[in-house]
């Protein structure tokens, strides 16, 4: 599902990632971990095409990102779901509209979007909240809305960048429960985190970075 061969990423003189190679299989749950500045976010940005590797080969969902043209980027993004630490919800749109955006961009009819929104809200435990605006929700609920948006188009891969970073313990566990549930449905899940307690509570394979290099695959 995800393959990296000798990937390097430099920002000018600064080396963010050095000679990174690993594979994540279909349906796997996997952590990308390491201290701050280790390269976790850079790694995720490479995986959803926000940046290009300086050298090396990168394959995600059957697409070679090193050869990806700019106009093919939406195709990649339509096949993966992304969850951010700061949720990235549109404050002027309702929960339903925020979640439905991922289907709107591919031209799904409105009645189908509404039906799917209700279904994913049930999965993340927020039934009937589609008419609320994000500001009326707690941090944990907003993160669950972000997860609902990421899974509404049944992506094969879900990337989560510090999804519990802004949440308290109980909320973090609730979010991890949802991610686990999504993984059990067959979605490959990659979670970038440095929360050791959470990784201990939900033990999965860890890909550990330090100073831009792989420490553990």
């Amino acid at each position, binding site marked *: 599902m995800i393959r990296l061969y000798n990937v390097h990423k430099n920002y000018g003189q600064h080396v963010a990632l050095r000679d990174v190679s690993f594979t994540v299989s279909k349906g796997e749950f996997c952590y990308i971990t390491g201290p701050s500045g280790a390269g976790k976010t850079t790694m995720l940005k490479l995986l959803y095409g926000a940046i290009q590797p300086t050298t090396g080969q990168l394959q995600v969902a059957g697409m070679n990102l090193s050869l990806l043209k700019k*106009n093919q980027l939406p195709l990649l*993004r*339509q096949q993966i779901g992304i969850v951010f630490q700061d949720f990235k*919800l549109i404050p002027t749109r309702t929960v339903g509209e925020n979640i439905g955006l*991922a289907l709107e*961009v591919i*031209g799904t*009819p409105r009645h189908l979007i509404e039906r799917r929104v209700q279904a994913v809200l049930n999965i993340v435990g927020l039934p009937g909240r589609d008419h609320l605006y994000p500001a009326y929700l707690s941090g944990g609920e907003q993160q669950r809305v972000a997860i609902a948006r990421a899974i509404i188009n049944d992506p094969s891969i879900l990337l989560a960048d510090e999804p519990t970073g802004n949440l308290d313990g109980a909320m973090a566990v609730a979010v991890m429960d949802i991610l686990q549930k999504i993984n059990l449905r067959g979605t490959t899940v990659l979670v970038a985190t440095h929360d050791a307690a959470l990784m201990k509570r939900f033990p999965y394979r860890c890909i550990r970075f330090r100073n831009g290099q792989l420490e553990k695959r």
Partner: protein
Amino acid sequence: MSLTFLQHIFRRATRSIWENLYLNAVSASVIGASLILLGLYSLVQNNLSTVIDSWNKDVHVSVYFADDVDEERRLELRDKIHGMSEVIQVRYVSEVDAKNWMLEEVSGIEDTLKELGDNILPASLEITLDAQMAHPKRIEEFASKIDYDDFVATDYGVEWVDKFNAFLRMFQALGTFVGLLIIIAAMFLVTNTVHLVIYNRRNEIEIAKLVGATKSFVVLPFLIEGTIQGLIGALGALTGLWVIHRTLVNQLQQHETLKMMTDLSFIPVGQQLLLLFIGLTLGLMAALIATLRFLRKVG
């Protein structure tokens, strides 16, 4: 591009107009104001051209007899000139006719004219030429053909029409130049206003791109928004121009001396459509430039 996709795009465009009503109103007003300026120029230019055309078609030459030419010779010359191929009509105006005409046209000079006697104004022939003669050189050639000693003066009033034509040509050139400047200035203002609308929605655009929005999904709503701004601006301008035109006609009708100008015509349909087209293009181009500039910045 599916119909559902287009429905989403239109819904996003109309929603954005509603959410950024003030900025959209500013853009539409700028477009409208520019088109009103262009339209006013058109209105003036069209009406001036109509007046000049009518002057040009109405080709007249007047020749004034010397005092010592008798009536018989005058009528002989009238018939001779009437027989020329370029001439449509010749009217003999005697000294008495000329004086009567003067009395009709200018009030309060009866006593003065009585004192001066009957022969104060010279007798003349008023010659109407064929419309094909409406050219200064041809009229001059004709005037030289009838340059008899019996006439003391010839007046064919073309020189100043010619000068007016030259003024009109300069007015047209100046109008085109100023019109272009107005369009460029409007484009600049509208582009920056649309840029503000896009900037207000930058987070939404970023998020839409993260969930797989294509370039067309991002750009098209702004283009539709720009086109709607252009359409509203152009329709507003045409309405404004019509109101200005009607007000002007009504004002002119109230003034006795300006009544002859009340057949002031509105800009022709072709130019109205052109203004509409300019408005739409202005809105569309401004939105396109602003959106592409924004996308180039954010990548």
